[in-house]
């Protein structure tokens, strides 16, 4: 079990994503949703990458998903597990797997959302996942 946790850089918000990071501060993971084609997307943005409509908004994710792929970077201190997690809501997103035995991760493993604080105390947390 890795005890040391890396310090997450604080993400910078911009007019395109400020609603996403404001929701993150309240513990909600939002994903992009297109009102025109109905498809979800990640990361959220001002146009639908599937159909091209700008009629997009945010919907809350259940925060549940499974590991699509992962890798533990060993040559840094502390080692950490980067991953793509496929949300039960649809999209696959880049994240870190935390609070886990880094030697016991597997593709398909069920995980759940747990926001991690970032370097700037006043900044937004980032959506990370732990084994469900």
């Amino acid at each position: 079990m890795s005890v040391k946790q890396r310090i997450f850089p604080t993400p910078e918000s911009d007019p395109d994503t400020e609603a996403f990071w404001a929701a993150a501060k309240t513990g909600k993971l939002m994903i992009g949703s297109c009102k025109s084609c109905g498809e979800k997307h990640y990361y959220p943005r001002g146009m639908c990458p599937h159909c091209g409509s700008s009629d997009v908004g945010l919907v809350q994710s259940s925060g549940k998903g499974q590991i699509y792929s992962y890798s533990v970077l060993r040559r840094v201190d502390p080692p950490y597990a980067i991953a793509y997690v496929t949300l039960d809501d649809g999209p696959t997103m880049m994240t870190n797997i935390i609070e886990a035995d880094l030697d016991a991760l597997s593709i398909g493993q069920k995980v759940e959302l747990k926001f991690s604080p970032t370097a700037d105390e006043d900044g937004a947390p980032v959506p990370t996942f732990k084994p469900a």
Partner: protein
Amino acid sequence: MSINGKAYIAGVYEHPTRKAVDKSLAQLHAESALGALADAGLSKNDVDGYFCAGDVPGLGALSMIDYMGLNLRHIDTTESGGSSYLMHVGHAAEAIALGKCSVALITLAGRPRAEGMATGTAPRNYGSSSPDVAFEFPFGPTVVNMYAMCAMRHMHEYGTTSEQLAWIKVAASHHAQHNEHAMLRNVVTVEEVVSSPMISDPLHRLDCCVISDGGGAIIVTSPEIAKSLKRPLVKVLGVGEAPKGQMGGKVDLTYSGARFSGATAFEEGKVKPSDMKYASIYDSFTITVLIQLEDLGFCEKGKGGAFVSDGNLIAGTGKLPFNTDGGGLCNNHPANRGGLTKVVEAVRQLRGEAHPAVQVANCDLALAHGTGGSLGTRHGASTVIMERE
């Protein structure tokens, strides 16, 4: 309309340096340019088109054009990481076919070793205005862990093994032993690759390419000019380029843009993968080679592990000799961008100028393929097919 037969590669040069503490970046570009011009039998005043990517110093191409004193009528600064230079070959052929230039110069150079860059294991930040950065950079995406995730997924879906990936490095090392400029000239075994230190699961140190300074250049000309020179004729038969990204969250790490760039290039060249006598395949990591070989059609998707095993990529014994200079895995990965040198070794093979120990007999058709950016996030793919006339 097609560029098939409309342009020739008349000159190539690979800078011999692998650690350039005594050279500036501009100097490396210029020395590479002069090397390729000398190889072609041309001078810098013959150049009327210049192609470069983000590794040049200054604003776009302007500083290097001024440094070299070029008088141009065509400029192209297409930036797509390590695949840029293969795109430049295609764009040069297009410009030449349209009469926009007749002697195109492409340069690449960089000094990551001299500058002490942590190429593989430090997260790269393309700036907060890049729309993906806030959603990725906090999680520590590096060059190596992004490709490692591709390898992990490939192993999961298709049963690919570390031993199979290791064969790619083994083949590259067999070639590099004959290259006096190669950074790593020792022949390695599968066992040595899989027992080298784990960098980012499942990629070991010997699954990773070298970090090197250096550079290179390519001269593409019109058919008339190429035929007026004294060098063997290498014709551009077909080119293709394609981007691939995360597709709005429909992430699929098992294939690359080579699926599309390769198909386009083969169609334009009116040839097929089995016609190729030699292939230069971008090799930032062993997994990069395996995924691209599948996507280019050299074997079925998912069968890359079996295809690369048992020395099948080694010149003289394998069915598809690849990266006979030792590639990025053993020879050189200048500026952390290996695309240009892929064209250089393919041209050497087509001219019969590769090292005799790795020269492919009757090498009349060759492919060079590059990937730029990251297979794990977003990348450009570019394929160039060439024929010795």
